[in-house]
């Protein structure tokens, strides 16, 4: 184990995987500049700067992945993916099916997402639910440096296109990371804190929010379980359902907008498949259905706070009325 930030953990995974498999290469705007150590070790063929053109960066990755390469592309910030939707969704997501299985697309598309930088909604927009909704793509979003490393390694080794989102708010948070090769399987959630009274289901930096809320709740005698999804697709439905069946209460927490977000999927799933276990209505705490302002206090208020999570759980346990309405603003 060593202590590193998520940024460092990602760099570690990239170096290890590129060493391990010569078909792995990485490109994107500024990749060769910003990852000088990879360039030095693996050369200009495998670590490339590109023109500023997300569409062809993604398209090139799709084409290359079908013929023996395993590209990792950096699309920088999630909203820039809007220029690469055709390549990611219509090509990477559909061409395997459309060709009757003739081709596979082992590629990883990385992007940063979420608040923390104060530079507004053209850089900060959580789009992960789009890719979970589209067929043929896997989607991950780690909450710890160890998972950043392990999920990126697993994503690179996976034979499918994987969208890899890094929460900006976690870029410089550090944690223990296993040395050497380290994979975290795609599709497996992590139980971050066991508890019996309520399941706090989350991903990305909101996992920390839930852990903080759980601390607060513990002081109030409430035992909150915190489940970190890590993979948004495939979604670890069994882990979600097992937790909800255990606690009987569900709060889903994320920064992304509410409507048709991952929280909607989790809440729908739980109410469909763990209905009889639910002792209270499920509750979503999410960012508002609004762009994320640059202004610092607005950005801070966008994602649900630990206090809001704890308060929602409090209301839920009191059992009074509909939790969702009260929580909808957060």
């Amino acid at each position, binding site marked *: 184990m060593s202590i590193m930030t998520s940024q460092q953990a990602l760099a570690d995974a990239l170096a290890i995987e590129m060493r391990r498999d010569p*078909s792995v290469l990485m490109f994107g705007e500024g990749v060769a500049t910003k990852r000088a150590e990879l360039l030095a070790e693996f050369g200009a*063929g495998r670590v*490339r700067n590109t023109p500023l053109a997300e569409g062809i960066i993604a398209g*090139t990755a799709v084409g*290359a992945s079908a*013929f023996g390469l395993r*590209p990792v592309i950096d699309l920088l910030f999630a909203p820039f993916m809007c220029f690469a939707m055709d390549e990611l969704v219509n090509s990477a997501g559909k061409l395997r099916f459309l060709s*009757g299985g003739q081709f596979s697309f082992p590629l990883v598309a990385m992007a940063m997402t979420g608040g923390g930088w104060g530079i507004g909604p053209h850089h900060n927009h959580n789009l992960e639910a789009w890719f979970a909704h589209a067929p043929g793509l896997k989607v991950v979003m780690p909450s710890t440096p160890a998972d950043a490393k392990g999920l990126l390694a697993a994503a690179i080794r996976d034979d499918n296109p994987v969208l890899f989102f890094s929460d900006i708010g976690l870029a410089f948070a550090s944690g223990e990371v296993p040395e050497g090769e380290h994979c975290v399987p795609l599709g497996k959630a992590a139980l971050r804190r066991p508890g019996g009274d309520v399941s706090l289901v989350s991903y990305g930096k909101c996992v920390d929010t839930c852990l903080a809320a759980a601390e607060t709740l513990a002081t109030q005698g409430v035992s909150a379980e915190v489940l970190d999804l890590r993979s948004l697709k495939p979604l670890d439905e069994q882990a979600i359902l097992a937790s909800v069946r255990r606690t009987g209460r569900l709060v889903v927490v994320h920064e992304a907008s509410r409507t048709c977000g991952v929280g909607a999927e989790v809440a729908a799933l739980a109410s469909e498949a763990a209905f009889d276990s639910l002792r209270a209505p499920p509750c979503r705490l999410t960012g508002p259905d609004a762009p994320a302002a640059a202004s610092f206090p607005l950005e801070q208020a966008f994602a649900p706070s630990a206090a809001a999570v704890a308060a929602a759980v409090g209301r839920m346990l009191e059992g009074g009325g509909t939790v969702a309405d009260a929580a909808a603003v957060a």
Partner: protein
Amino acid sequence: MKIDTDYPDALALHEAMQLIRSYEERMTAIQAEGAAAGTCTAVGQEAAAVGVMAALGRDERILTNHRSAGHLLARGADPGRLMAEAMGRATGYCKGKSGSLHVSAAELGVVLTSTIVGGELSLATGVALAHKQLGLPGVVVCIFGDGAACEGVFHESLNLAAVWSLPILYVCENNQWQAFVHRRETMVGERVAEWATGYRIGSAVVDGNDVHAVRAAAAAALAEVRCSGRPFLLEAETYRLRGHFEPDDQAYVDAAELAAWRDRDPLGRSRRALLAAGHDARALAELETAVERRIDQAQAFALASPYPELAELTRDVFA
């Protein structure tokens, strides 16, 4: 499946064009009867398809688009499996999942076909990068339309191919139409090849209705790409003689323009040239009959083929 690269003489080229024409006319008839979904034909563009394919080697990888039956057949695709695909049958090249619009056939080197206009342009750079990086033989041939050249990804693709020196032969089939819009409504210049200059990419324009001219131009262009390792753009000037997507009454098409291009129909020109070169009219008629018989067989094969089972709904989504 054998890849067709061997077109020994003018008669072989003519036969390949005839096969495409018969295939597409049959498909429109089948469509009209309701036995297949709507489809895009490239009637009038056979010389461009056959001329280019006849210039390629076995190792070339080809990306094409929605108007691709000609490319596939000229590359050696089995008309039966192609028709089966167009009819959504399990015996088709893509198990019936693709239908007529996105047929890929890895065994023929016809890969990653997209019916998102411009899709081929966004994918070709990656295939070429793999060729270059892994030292694979063959160059990448990317066939697209004048309409695709208006999509932003055209600019991105050519620019990246130029900057990274990727071995791509871009082939623009400029058939003057982009669905229901004439090319002159969508660009100021007359030719897509003008745009290649900005990327310092070599280009050539060829009479796309003359199969020999296309073959020669494609061979020269291919040699250029092989030798330089850099992209090249070949533009074939041709015309879409039928509608965009069957059925299509072509009410929006200028009758005089259509008539003028009908006179330049590549099959008519090829036939006249063969007769002038001393070929026998009866032999040509027999060739046509033989081709029709192959298409009959193809149709019978397709019609006798089963539809995919319902489990295919969710198969092949993930590796």
